[in-house]
């Protein structure tokens, strides 16, 4: 039993079986990487975890409770945050404002009847958001329109927004795609640091093997909607089945 238990999850889009009987368990406080070729159904699987899609069959349990049938905001409140494959941020707002939204969310939103607690909350939110921007190396961009940033910066902002919520489970969908090498390394360092400092479980979809092997404790290979193998990184590296399915090489 892990913190996240996916059992027999299937999802069909018209004639396409995107996921078939996926069973996967993520251990608490581990980094679990999901790799696989494009179109394998990795993003679809994450969509089933955060309430964006409802699987046709199967069950998804987080910390012993089912997430199916709950709306995205309820699932987030259970402790699951997600970084999307195409950055989902507030393009019309500034970087600092973007960062403040999750901070308000973690403090029961923006409503507060009492003026004093409203004031305290605002100060608290502002401090947390500024600190997170410093952690993400983005303090100099605080006043920028989020939409006008590069793709890599948008993604870093999104990662920061998710981390500022102190989630118990962080889902990352190709977090380093579109990032410069230096930013990729920064992100790896940041995630390593977070992993050491906090009680956090991370499920990460990634194409960059450097990232996968520097972070993952456990790797699942997904191909055509089914898990092919699940093993430790060192075993995955040499697995001929993986090389064949994922890297297109014959062993």
């Amino acid at each position: 039993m892990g913190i996240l238990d996916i059992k027999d999850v299937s999802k069909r889009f018209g004639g396409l079986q995107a996921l078939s009987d996926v069973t996967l368990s993520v251990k608490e406080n581990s980094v679990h990487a999901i790799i696989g070729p494009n179109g394998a159904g990795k993003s679809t699987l994450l969509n089933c975890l955060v309430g964006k899609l409802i699987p046709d069959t199967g069950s998804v349990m987080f910390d012993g409770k089912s997430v199916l049938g709950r709306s995205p905001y309820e699932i987030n409140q259970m402790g699951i945050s997600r970084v999307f494959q195409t950055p989902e941020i507030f393009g019309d707002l500034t970087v600092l404002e973007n960062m403040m939204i999750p901070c308000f969310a973690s403090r029961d939103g923006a409503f507060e009847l009492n003026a004093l607690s409203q004031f305290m909350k605002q100060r608290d939110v502002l401090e947390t958001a500024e600190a997170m921007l410093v952690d993400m190396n983005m303090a100099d961009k605080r006043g920028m329109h989020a939409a006008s940033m590069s793709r890599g910066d948008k993604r870093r902002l999104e990662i920061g927004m998710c981390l500022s919520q102190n989630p118990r489970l962080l889902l990352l969908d190709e977090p380093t795609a579109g990032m410069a090498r230096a930013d990729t390394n920064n992100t790896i360092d940041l995630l390593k640091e977070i992993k050491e400092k906090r009680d956090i479980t991370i499920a990460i979809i990634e194409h960059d093997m450097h990232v996968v092997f520097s972070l993952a404790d456990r790797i699942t290979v997904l191909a055509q909607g089914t898990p092919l193998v699940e093993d430790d990184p060192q075993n995955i590296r040499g697995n001929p089945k993986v090389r064949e399915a994922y890297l297109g090489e014959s062993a």
Partner: protein
Amino acid sequence: MFGLDKKDTSLLIIVAIITLLAPFILNPFPEGSAMAQFNAGYPDLMQRFVIFGIFAVGFNILFGLTGYLSFGHAAFLGVGSYACVWMFKLLGYNILPGILLSLVVSGIFALGIGYVSLRRSGIYFSILTLAFAQMSFALAYSVLSNPKFNLTNGETGLQVYTDDPQVLMGPNSPTVPNLFGLEMNATYKLELGPWLFQFNAGYYFCAIVMLLVVYLAIRIFRSPFGLMLRAVKSNQQRMGYTGLNTRPYTLAAFVISGMYAGLAGGLMASMDPLAGAERMQWTASGEVVLMTILGGAGTLIGPILGAGFIKYFENIFSKINDNVLHQWFAFMPDWMENAMVFIVHPFIGKGWHLTLGLLFMLVVIFLPGGLVEGGQKLMRWIRGDRRKKKAAEKAKSTTTTEPAE
């Protein structure tokens, strides 16, 4: 970060000064001059400027911040008017109870309509609000006006009759809407040479109310609540994945903007104690959308500008007729004069809608940010011009002083 910054405060002060000096500003032309028909400084029109300003400012809290486009806001305005006139009928002509009831009733209405309509977004939301507004119109126009149960007085419109209870009216109470005795139609006329300026109690009452609710709107824009609303407009999906249920925020915005509309309706009834169903019609709902977009949706001051612009056109352009045109072009040879009148004719009088439509098109195409964007561009241009001039002068002075050194 939150609260009013320096710019907001100065904006508010400028708006306050303009509103309070409006009787002068809107009457720049001497009485009896050819241009006097462009004067807008008479009580009736000035009241309409600020009342529709309130309406549009409230609409902008919903549309400008959250992006939810309501096509039924006139329903709240109408409900506010009916509520206020009922207070006149039952209690008496003091406007305070009437306006308070307008706020309460429109708030309750907005809560119900918003609760249902906000289950959908985009075009479906707009259609739902439109449907509710048209139902309200039908209710007011016919259903709720029958001999057994006459709440709205149908086609005639709701008004005060001498046999109404008016329980709070004493023998000496004024028989027109008043605020503790200050009659809303009281006007002080100031004649300065050929100029005539009118100071109307009703206008100043509405203007002060407008300044208060504009202040409130700025506070909302700059609050965490306002931030949440802007985030809804920017990416509602993300709000969900961030653990925020957006419904309470959008509903609160809907109710607040509905109450602004109700307040405007109450003020309208306070200036002229009458409420008709036509105030709820879809054209009235569309008008406030035009006002907000024309002025600049999502800006603090835009909706007021838009409201003023449209009301000015409605009242001034619609009064220009062919005789006036002939006077204007009298200096031309006869054939040319007739040709000019022929060309301009469709755009004036009843054709003012045509002019407004053309202007609206121009603004939307060339100034998507509305009149506010136009103003900003103008300011930048003037500033840039001055900076260039200064730079040129500086260059000149340095070149002339150099030889002396």
